């Protein structure tokens, strides 16, 4: 064991001393690739170009558990740019953000994807990200920027809406009109039918709390009191709500109203028609960002990676790979998404700065109301 540690230390020292030779070889090997693949995508707003320093091959991505892009696509990028993508994925957006904050100054990678609008302010305040804006940001992407940052550190990559979903087959079978709004959920007709993951343990759960805060302002605890009195069930994770409680989930649950995503109807297609519907007046938009980490070893590689995430190829693969909508307008959607996944036109919003300032207070209040 100690031998291992010693070996690791030894290797580190060795690498440090022979580092120049290794990186020089890499540089020579990939120099042609970088010029052909670069072109429109690399060499954006940053002044620290790859021209002087020897090129580092590995680009280390720090991300969350849901990171997923087709292997082929990644291989293509690696071939074009000469970089090699190393993925370090763990936890959810909250854990990812806190990990970045804790390792500030000595980041565990070069670039990060997955900090969302509910955690963005915390990361920005801590100075986790370096300034970088891709040279060409497609029109419309700017609307997802964090207010105040305006794309200078964080580049929006995808968005998804957390919405209340209903099992339309259940409501048809029970001859009951499905609820449409947040107000409907507290009506006696829907008593004991709603299940949501908790705000303290689940990021969609938090998004739903934020939706109610956006809708009811300071009166939101009253709404939650009514919701609880109307028999709402709270679970610790999305999986419990969907797979155990929801009538369309794997566990054949008993509740036909669940908190989930606006893209869900695309996943419940049976015999050419979807069995669920997202209530578009109940949605809260989550935006995921990418950014170059302050203190990154491979800044040009990190910047090239952010550029690539905005490229048409990656944007088009986001729905099938990560269940999210691309931020670039006009990106073609998969057929079932185009048909069944409806997006809200006016989602409920709370600013990232407000979320950051009030998260603890809100969660405490929420726990008090819901644990009664």
């Amino acid at each position: 064991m100690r031998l291992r540690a010693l070996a690791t230390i030894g290797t580190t020292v060795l690498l440090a001393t022979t580092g120049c030779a290794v990186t020089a070889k890499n540089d020579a090997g990939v120099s042609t690739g970088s010029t052909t693949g670069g072109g429109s995508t690399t060499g954006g707003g940053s002044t620290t170009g790859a021209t002087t320093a020897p090129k580092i091959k590995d680009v280390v991505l720090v991300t969350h558990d849901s990171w997923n892009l087709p292997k082929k696509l990644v291989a293509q990028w690696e071939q074009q740019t000469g970089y090699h993508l190393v993925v370090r994925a763990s936890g959810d957006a909250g854990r990812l953000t806190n990990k970045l904050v804790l390792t500030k100054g000595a980041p565990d990678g070069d670039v990060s994807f997955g900090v969302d609008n509910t955690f963005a302010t915390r990361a920005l305040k801590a100075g986790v990200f370096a300034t970088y804006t891709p040279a060409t940001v497609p029109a419309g992407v700017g609307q997802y920027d964090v207010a105040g940052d305006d794309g200078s550190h964080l580049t929006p990559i995808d968005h998804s809406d957390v919405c209340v979903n209903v099992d339309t087959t259940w409501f048809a079978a029970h001859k009951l009109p499905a609820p449409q709004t947040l107000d409907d959920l507290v009506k006696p007709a829907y008593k004991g039918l709603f299940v949501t993951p908790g705000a303290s343990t689940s990021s969609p759960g938090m998004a739903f709390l934020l939706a109610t805060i956006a809708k009811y302002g300071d009166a939101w605890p009253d709404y939650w009191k009514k919701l609880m009195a109307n028999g709402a069930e709270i679970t610790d994770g999305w999986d419990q709500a969907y797979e155990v409680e929801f009538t369309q989930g794997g566990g054949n649950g008993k509740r036909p109203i669940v908190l989930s995503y606006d893209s869900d109807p695309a996943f419940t297609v049976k015999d050419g028609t979807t069995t669920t519907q997202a209530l578009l007046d109940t949605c809260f938009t989550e935006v995921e960002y990418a950014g170059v980490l302050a203190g990154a070893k491979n800044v040009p590689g990190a910047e090239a990676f952010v550029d690539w995430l905005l490229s048409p190829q990656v944007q088009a693969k986001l729905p099938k790979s990560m269940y999210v909508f691309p931020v670039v307008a006009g990106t073609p959607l998969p057929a079932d998404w185009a048909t069944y996944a409806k997006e809200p036109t006016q989602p409920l919003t709370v600013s990232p700065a407000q979320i950051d300032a009030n998260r603890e207070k809100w969660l405490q209040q929420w726990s008090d109301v819901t644990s009664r």
Partner: protein
Amino acid sequence: MERRHLPLTRGSSRNRGSSRNRGSSHNRGSSLSRPLGLLALAAIPVAVLGIFFLLPVIGMVGRGFRPEGRWDVPGVLAVLGRSQVQSALWFTVWSATVATAVTVLLGLPAAYVLHRLALPLRRLVRAALLVPFVLPTIVVGIAFRVLLTGPLSWLSIDGTPVAIIAGLVFFNVAVVVRAVGAAWESLDARPAEAAAALGAAPWTVFRTVTLPALRPAIVGAASVVFLFCATSFGIVLTLGGLRYRSVETEIYLLTTNLLDLQGAAALSLLQLVVVVLLLAVGARLRAVPPSGQRVPVRPHRPGVGDVPQLLLTALVLGFVALPVGALVVGSLRVEGRWSLANYRALTSTGSHQALLEPATTALDLSLRIAVDATLLALTLGLLVALSVTRRTHSRAERRLRGTLDALFMLPLGVSAVTLGFGFLVTLDRPPLDLRDSPWLVPIAQALVALPLVVRTLVPALAGIDDRQRQAAASLGAGPLRSAVVVEVPVLWRPLLAAAGFAFAASLGEFGATSFLARDENATLPVVIYRLIGHPGPMNYGMALAASCVLAATTAVVMLVVERLRVPSLGVL
């Protein structure tokens, strides 16, 4: 108390005599150098524990104490005054205590039935009982809740502390059955027979003869179970429906969500204090380990007097089998029909590509990591066990040994979140730039398995009559040769048993692994977690199927270990 039943354990009274003789013949100079020798033997495990456990935990807790780079002890102490912290502590202590008590009460009759009675298939049942040990909490949580909201909804315990305690018992009952059962198997039957011959009723015999002799094993198992219960995270949240908070769930919320390091540090310290207190009490109660040098008893046929125990055991087995059965059934159902499609799908990346690699790749990797972790845990555990079971000559030395023994139990009692983040903030610069080392996952898993290994090996080693070593030495054997002829024959079977335990613990480990796992090396529990977190009925079915594969793999490994185990030596 101890002295009263000492004459029953002939081996240990012999040990005491021989060590007293040895002690008096020793000169003072060498008794000073003994603690140093002890430290040398324990140096490697202590160094590993220091780098991969103490340093990260201290680093993380230290951040809470110095929020702005300045020490702020009052700030941390103020956290302990928060009402939710106090209620979390209270909930943790009472729920873990009740769960431990129920686990022990249910485990004892099952240990007796499965280890002392000649029943068909008992090996298979014993192996199967360990299955819950490796099942991912998230899957068991779903299985439990499908039962509690479906066929068992008449119990109306969903979302209550009763459900939480039932979940904790489900996960831990095997620990008691194995540990106490093994001790029971190796118990000398003659004192109990003598008591019975003198007219004592069966209950009196059990209370006055058997129970005191089993006490070390029961206390050892109960300490491990309590640590598992007190640091359980998923069960409390899933089965309690977020209504109950324990110290562990608070640490998780404060660290991963609110980034309130001060609060997390206070709670981590609280957790450590509770764990250390528990270990101190446990060590006191465990005191004299039973000797292994006895005539093993052959299992006997069940009689009329065994009926209550048999009924209770059936209850325990049913209780464990129900959620597992629900999992198996769920994994075999596809769109309302029986099918193996979920299992066939394990070689794919899931519907809508939920995974980057097929689940079979993850299983392969899990097995490899588990082998590495097991080897590590065994090597370290053996060194620890050897150093804490050397003969003691002075009070200081005994205390040092006791501290060492307890030190290696700590990884069970400290939050995986604290450890996971601790890795990131402390192992980040040379010479310890290890946070990206592929060895981090096996090392973290080995640390979790280490307490189980130590608790398995220590009783076996402590049971060796020291006169055997002296005899070997006087016949001219060097230290190495004496180890080969005396210790190895006694140790290799408990080593295998420990290997089984460590393997299972590593295979099922999720908490620390999820902090370290990367895409290139996602273990099966991590993959199951990912599958279940993605929409699509196939992914849910695949998660269930993967859990069943994990369970079956464990059961097979345990069955192999069962066949190799020798009845006269204890486990844990």
